[in-house]
């Protein structure tokens, strides 16, 4: 498996209206590593992901991605096609990559099982709860064996039990396949649990306030009881808080 390297240099994004969302951002996503982005609401995290995903162009700076990645993108909203049932929504990226109908179905069912939606495969999106929609979106992000995974608050709409379970699932998966991951989350615990590095951003326009290397190896449920786990969380919280108080 090729590992994807992402390099942002002095990336800036100013929206047509004049809103500056990202300011002079340098960021490296190391191959096979999980980077978590934490930052205040509206600071520019989603914009950054969309810049890396290539659906928004930076107004300055450069973004290099090498080699050409297979992107798995979980947007902040579920973005399901209302006329497709859950299975066919999840299978979409495979379908677009011209996989056979059989493969689509099998892989989709496998991912749905992973996110606990096995028995909702035939539902239309309109018949899903908010959390179920997001889980379908997560399943879709994983289906095409991505080499670069961009996740925008994928688990924000889930209850804590399911969320922890999925955190562990994802942790195992990305490590096994050494996918390059950029994860936006508002849960500091989740960031610490999943990431190799946590990047804390300032309020808009997003600047990097601090980075935290997460020293844990294996990620499993036991980690959450670890003392350093809690310590790291509160250090990160304080950086975030300080950043927000500095500007307001």
């Amino acid at each position, binding site marked *: 498996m090729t590992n994807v390297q992402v390099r942002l240099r002095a990336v800036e994004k100013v929206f047509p209206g004049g809103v500056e969302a990202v300011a002079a951002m340098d960021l490296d996503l190391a191959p096979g590593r999980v980077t978590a982005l934490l930052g205040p609401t509206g600071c520019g995290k989603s914009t950054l992901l969309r810049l890396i995903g290539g659906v928004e162009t930076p107004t300055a700076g450069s973004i290099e991605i090498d080699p050409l990645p297979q*992107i798995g*993108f979980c947007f902040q909203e579920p973005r399901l*096609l*209302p006329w497709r049932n859950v299975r066919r929504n999840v299978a*979409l990226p495979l*379908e*677009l990559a011209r996989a056979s109908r059989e493969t689509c179905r099998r892989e989709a069912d496998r991912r749905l099982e992973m996110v606990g939606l096995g028995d909702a495969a035939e539902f239309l999106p309109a018949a899903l709860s908010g959390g179920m929609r997001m889980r379908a979106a997560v399943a879709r992000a994983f289906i*095409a064996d991505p080499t670069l995974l961009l996740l925008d608050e994928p688990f924000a709409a889930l209850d804590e039990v399911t969320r922890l379970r999925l955190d562990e699932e994802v942790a195992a998966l990305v490590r096994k396949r050494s996918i390059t991951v950029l994860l936006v989350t508002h849960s500091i615990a989740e960031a610490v649990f999943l990431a190799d590095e946590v990047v804390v951003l300032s309020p808009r326009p997003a600047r990097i306030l601090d980075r935290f290397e997460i020293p844990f190896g294996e990620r499993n449920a036991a980690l959450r009881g670890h003392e350093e786990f809690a310590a790291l969380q509160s250090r990160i919280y304080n950086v975030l808080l300080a950043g927000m108080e500095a500007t307001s």
Partner: protein
Amino acid sequence: MKYPRIIWNSVWPPAVVVLILLSLWHLAVVLFSIPEFLLPTPWSVLERIYDQWPRLIAATGRTATATLLGFGLSAVIGIVSGSLLSLVPLARRGVYPLTLLLQMVPLVAIAPMLVIWFGYGLPSVIAAACIVSVFPVIAGTLDGLQSVDAGLAEMFRIHRAGRIRTWWSLGLPWSLPSVFTGLRIAAGLAVIGAIVGEFVGAFGGDQAPLGAVITSALKQNQTSTVFAAVTLAAMLGFALFGFVNLAGWLLLGRWHESAR
């Protein structure tokens, strides 16, 4: 809901309204003693339909053929060219306004060309029905494709879906409601297009379709025959409209608000 139920439910309300309107019409004719040459009573129109049934049903059959083929062509050409116009932005800006021409040129003005290029009879009439009804399908398709949700389009771009794939898997289903708006409008236009096409390009006499029956009856001041033929044309239009609605319901019913 089962199909027969749906069809029944969409048939009885207009049927009731039609009956009410017919009664009002009848009353108006009687009360204001409107002369027959201007507006016959519904009853005499019915009588005429009954009298001339063999001739009228044959005429309706001919008009129906032209209408259906013209409408079918419109649907295909409209959806395809609407899609092409949306795929190629410059073509959209350059060509789309011109497709409006199809709708604005009076058929009588191009009737000579129509009959010389397509020949008298069915081909000309089909061409007329198609020319008159294709623009709404183009406009419906194009407007639908232009309003695809930006978020979903973004998702397709991230997965590097080609234009054709995006059109097929996102644009087309997304636009269906609007395509069906166009098709509903085209249904009525195809009927009138065929009739007007028959005014200028169909054989008369024994082979007369409804349009020819209408002009011939108009010349004879047989207003009740005119209305009889118009009634049958309207029936044809309603049938086509109903068919389009049913198709729309089948395609959209499961997911789109408009089909609830």
